[in-house]
């Protein structure tokens, strides 16, 4: 039965997730092309010095890419579920309600994970061409909260979309918006070294909260 749920979710998001991943890959490709160009026009040691001691991040444009992915997938997956209260169809299926929702959520989150892993892998691979492992690992530490933010955005938007009452949607948006800033507080390279694990735990906790909105829908809060 979960296969059918996956099938439905895939039908909804397939073009978006593929398109987003493709765009992301192209973006990363462009980023490294630009880096290559910089290396050609600037001495390598100047490039390293800029990165190590002057806070330059050649990847800073990537900051909101995971967030955009999270938002896109959340909307494409869950908006079709709430139009005309189609969530009723989902809840009527012969599976425990929370189980269905968690399967749907897992599919969306895993799709994002696959995209992000592709980005991560490409980024790491290309970076190692130009920079030593210490610099690459610091940039990965810097990128990690941005990736986590992509997931957090996905979870929060799902919570908001499933919430039946508009006033609470607005409240969740407010709190969710403030909460998201935690992932983008400081830009410094490797600044999140000590916070990434805490953020990871928070993001995982957030992943199941949408069940509350769905529960409110089921009880007829509309």
């Amino acid at each position, binding site marked *: 039965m979960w296969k059918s749920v996956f099938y439905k979710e895939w039908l909804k998001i397939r073009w978006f997730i593929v398109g987003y991943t493709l765009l992301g890959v192209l973006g990363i490709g462009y980023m490294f092309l630009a880096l290559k160009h910089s290396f050609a026009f600037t001495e*390598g*040691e100047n490039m390293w010095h800029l990165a190590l001691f002057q806070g330059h991040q050649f990847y800073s444009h990537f900051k909101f890419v995971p967030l955009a992915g999270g938002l896109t997938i959340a909307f494409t997956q869950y908006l079709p579920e709430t139009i005309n209260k189609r969530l009723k169809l989902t809840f009527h299926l012969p599976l425990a309600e929370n189980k269905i929702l968690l399967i749907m959520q897992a599919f969306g989150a895993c799709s994002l994970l696959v995209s992000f892993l592709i980005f991560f892998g490409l980024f790491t691979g290309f970076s190692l*061409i130009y920079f030593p492992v210490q610099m690459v690992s610091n940039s990965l530490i810097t990128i990690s909260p941005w990736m986590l933010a992509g997931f957090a955005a996905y979870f929060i938007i799902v919570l908001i979309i499933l919430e039946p009452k508009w006033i609470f949607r607005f409240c969740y948006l407010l709190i969710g918006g403030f909460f998201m800033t935690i992932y983008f507080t400081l830009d410094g390279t490797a600044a*999140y070294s000590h*916070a990434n694990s805490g953020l990871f735990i928070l993001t995982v906790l957030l992943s199941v909260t949408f069940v509350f909105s769905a*529960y409110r829908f089921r009880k007829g809060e509309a």
Partner: protein
Amino acid sequence: MWYILIFIGVLTLAIFLPKLYWIAFEKPPRKPFILYSCVNNEFMIHRIGERVWVDTKGKQYSREEYEQKLPMMFYKQLLASGSMPDSIRGTALDMHAILREKSFFRLKANEIDAPRPELYPLFESRTGRAYLELPEDFFRITWRIEFIEATTNKIQEEKSQLFSAALFHNGFSFPAKFISGLPTFRKSCDEGYLIVDSKDQLFHLKMIKGKPFVKKIDVPEGVKFKHISCVDFNNKDFYAYLFSDKNEIYILTQANYKLINWAIEGYDPANCDLKIFGDLLNYTVIIEANDHQKAIALDKQYEIVDTYTEKWLVKEDMQEDWIFASLFPAQLSMTSDNSKFIRFYFTPSKGFDWIFLNLLLVAFHFIWLLKRKTKLKSHLADLGIVGISGIYGLIAIHLFQNKFFD
């Protein structure tokens, strides 16, 4: 699920409500600017906001009189007004000497608790050229020292082996714990790096004509350095200020690699900003903590000649903070003034005045529950949450309503 949402709600509110409060109400503390005067052997204090210049005894000075007490600092002004003295305490005031001895060093707490680069450029110390140039490679010290050429990102094996051997033969124990230097070409000359190895031994590393220069420095028994700041002063007296894990300040002389302990007390690098003004006759060490400033004057033999401490009203003593402490049980922040790292910094409010508001809010929520005719037993945890987290919990609970429908 609901409790997770409440937890996240409380967390978010605990970060942003206090932030909002302080943006609205925070007032800057009045910090004085303190310098040691070699003219009257006294500390001179400039209260910047009030445009008042006094000494430690409270005697007031005009701006010109104040500047005349500090000729090393205000020599330009005094020269322009013709009131620069010829000598002080028998020492002739030669401009060249004044400029040579003038130094300023600053170390903020957040520079210590900050991410470290892990790769550094080792300059050629004797290029024979007027200006320093960035080398083509950067080094890192892991199980050995490796030089990586920046353009190709490849390890230069020969150079790496040469320098690794030199370090090894001088007793270096890999990997390095701390590397300090001036990784910029904007300095008068290159003096390499001071490196603490895994056994807390101290080494000086330079590159001279392409060859490694390694000197193991004798460290007093039991002294471990947790932070080193290399300096580039005109007088070339010392290489660096070193800070031990017992919060002592040392200097490392250039002449004979001697580590001299400045007997400074009251400096906690994790919470204090440090400023050291050097001039022809004295060193003035300013330790600035949250609520006080301690000024210590040393002579050129690094002996303490005078100290002065001044406290000021901090956030915590002001009315705004008392109100804050009555409203919020604690504050959460992702950033700290004393660090460049993001963490979840948790600061409980001073005192327990907030308990009154919390009890009030618990009562409010209790009445709200009664009015809704809900089963109180199932909401005991909520009342507990409001009791502990106060206004954060109350807002969060009302934001995520109707956890039970049965």
